[in-house]
């Protein structure tokens, strides 16, 4: 929950409304992506895994509008995904939360970066996440798919990142905060 709302917010402040709109949009997007994955459309065994679009959306979002995406919302969405998509519950959610916090605390750094460098940063982060995920599986003696198979998914996800950033820019006019820009509550981004 956002802290320190001004008392005037009882009459719905347009900035506050926009904040909740963004959050609802993120949840809706995550639900739609999960729905698409659940469709029983012949995901035969051995087929090549597709990209994890939700992860791209999440990273692009956190780097552009971190104020609209609280960590609890990220946790809830990824944990629900863990549970419904039959993954070990909590593990991927924990990794995603750590990764998003890593990006969030470096907003000041990433706003200086060109897109190519940002892309490389995201790619490195995604690879690190997969390796951490596999390491945790190994430590807990949980069976896991082949490394190459999982890396194909990561590779696709990395390739999809620019497209997702472009779509967010076109659809929601997301951009990295400029120097001196302030958020809906008047704090510096």
């Amino acid at each position: 929950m956002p802290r320190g709302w001004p008392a005037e917010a009882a009459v719905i402040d347009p900035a506050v409304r926009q904040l909740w709109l963004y959050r609802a949009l993120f949840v809706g997007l995550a639900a739609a992506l999960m729905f698409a994955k659940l469709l029983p459309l012949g995901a035969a065994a051995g087929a090549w895994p597709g990209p994890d679009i939700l992860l791209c959306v999440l990273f692009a979002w956190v780097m552009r509008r971190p104020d609209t995406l609280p960590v609890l919302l990220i946790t809830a969405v990824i944990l629900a995904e863990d549970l419904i998509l039959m993954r070990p519950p909590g593990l991927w959610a924990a990794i995603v939360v750590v990764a998003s916090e890593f990006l969030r605390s470096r907003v000041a750094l990433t706003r200086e970066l060109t897109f190519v460098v940002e892309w490389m940063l995201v790619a490195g982060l995604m690879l690190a996440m997969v390796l951490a995920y596999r390491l945790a599986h190994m430590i807990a003696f949980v069976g896991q798919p082949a490394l190459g198979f999982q890396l194909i998914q990561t590779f696709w996800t990395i390739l999809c990142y620019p497209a997702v950033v472009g779509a967010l820019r076109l659809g929601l006019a997301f951009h990295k905060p400029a120097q001196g820009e302030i958020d809906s509550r008047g704090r510096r981004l």
Partner: protein
Amino acid sequence: VARPRTGPDEFSRPLRRVLVALLVLALVGLFLLWRIDSPRVERFRAGLVDAVVPNLDWALVPVTKAAAMIEDFQSYARIHEQNQELKRELQQMKAWKEAALQLEQQNARLLDLNQVRLDPRLTHVTGVVLADSGSPFRQSVLLNVGARDGLRDGWATMDGIGLVGRISGVGERTARVILVTDSTSRIPVTVQPSGQRALLSGDNSPLPPLEFVEDADEVRPGDRVVTSGDGGMFPAGLLVGQVALGTDRRLRVILAADYQRLEFLRVLRSHALDPITDTGGLIAPPLGPMPEARAEVDPGAAAGTSPAPAGGDVGEGGSGDAEGLASGGGGD
């Protein structure tokens, strides 16, 4: 209204960091709880899926049907070739049908002579595939039948032809089927006609390999693979598929079930499975209470641990079923 540099943010930041650390710890704790006490968390998961996915039914079904229609439409393009092909196949099938009818009658007569009692409890519930596992690393589907239809964990699931998987995770309205191709699936099978026992172990590929074959030389590509009924998990004799030699020179199984289009699945009501209540003992030679008493104790204990010979249910007064089969076969 920009706030000064030493706003509340500067103070809340360390607190926030602690809270995020606690959050991550809680998530890792959940993972550990799942690892240690999986059934409880899996029950929660089944309950959650049960609450969420059937509500998406109104959207899942039209989208799936639309995609199937597009696929069907594409196949219209090849309709003439298909027609020719089907006619040829039909010719062959007629010959097979004749052979099958004769064999069915013969089989019924033989069963009657042997007084074999067919298991009357082997009925089935048919369900519709609601959703996929949603992950390329997990092979499972969700059916729209569940505990309210009397489903239990461990029951075998087939499509019209072959074995598809087993029930694992039953909600009130839904049940999850772990497919034979999933990397956690292990199914005891028999290879016909040599009668070799083996374990069909899924590895997330379309052709799961056969493991622990007694004598691999006796198994040839093209042999039929059926469930063996070992371990009391599945009824014996359900068709699984055909042996093939993989490109990696391993014996693999071409599954008989049509995995491209899993739509209607039938769940076989198997016998009530014994619930697993304890952790099970060590598999070790039995120890006598005292060294001098060992001579008397050993034979009895050894007999207790040796596997009981698997025998069919043979009883009297079982000719009714066989006669029913014979008349059914003759009537067609």
